[in-house]
């Protein structure tokens, strides 16, 4: 099973960062790679089990299911239902933890998935260095970091 771990520090309190990222339908509002998103069946985006159907700027479409969301622990866990990426059993978690020493936020984004062995390095690089770090970089531009 392939594993991705990317983390960063953002110069804002965790409640401000969480307000920006907690909306499961809100990726286009903060992630530069995402063009549009909708929740299937008109469900609220914080209903566990809801499915987001979103389109990347490169045209790819991905459907993901919300598995867990906690305003208390500030994390969001989701799985991929459909994507052109060639991954199976993909589960990812975005987690925020306060840095008490200076009102910053420690952000971790992790994923685990199965894929063809020869594609693992490329996928880990694209997901971690591309998608996840790309989201972090966008947040750092907004909040500093």
């Amino acid at each position, binding site marked *: 099973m392939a594993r991705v*771990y*990317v*983390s*960063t*520090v953002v110069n804002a309190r965790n409640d401000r960062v969480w307000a920006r990222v907690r909306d499961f339908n809100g990726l286009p509002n903060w992630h530069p790679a995402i063009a549009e998103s909708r929740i299937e069946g008109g469900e609220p985006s914080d209903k566990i089990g809801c499915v987001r159907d979103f389109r990347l700027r490169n045209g790819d479409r991905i459907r993901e299911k919300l598995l867990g969301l906690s305003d208390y622990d500030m994390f969001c866990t989701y799985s991929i239902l459909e994507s052109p990426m060639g991954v199976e059993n993909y589960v990812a978690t975005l987690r925020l*933890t*306060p*840095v*008490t*020493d*200076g009102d*910053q936020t*420690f952000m*971790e984004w992790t994923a685990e998935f199965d894929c063809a062995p020869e594609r693992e390095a490329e996928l880990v690089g694209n997901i*971690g260095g591309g998608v996840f*770090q790309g989201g*972090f970089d966008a947040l750092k531009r907004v909040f500093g970091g």
Partner: protein
Amino acid sequence: MPHIVKSTILDASTDAVWTVLRDFNGHDRWHPVVATSSIERAQSSDKIGCIRRFKLNDGSELREQLLALSDLEQSFSYCLLDTPMPMFNYVAHVRLLPVTDGDRTFWHWESRFTTRPEDRDRITHMVAEDIYQAGFEAIRRHLKEAA
């Protein structure tokens, strides 16, 4: 039950920080309030269950027991056995996580304990500031001097 959580970011890799922190008998080399430290019964300081005996700069003594230590997770847990202060059921956890964006370290230090209501605020503040926050600053200096 007071719950103390303190965390900081260090400009060093988790491996560099862990090398210093994993020694359960090493606080006297970097923490400003600890004068001397020794492990009872000459046990190894990474043996689960070992007990460290601190003498603090103010002359008081305390004993703490190692409950868990993981080189994989870069974490350890310990509890207080004896202290001159009215603190009971004190269990603390230290955990390092890598900040991959810049090869830094997120250091998380938390604990819970019970005490008398009238001592609660004073002891909570003392542990959070004089032990944890002062420990953060001391490790920052220690790593800078070692570099």
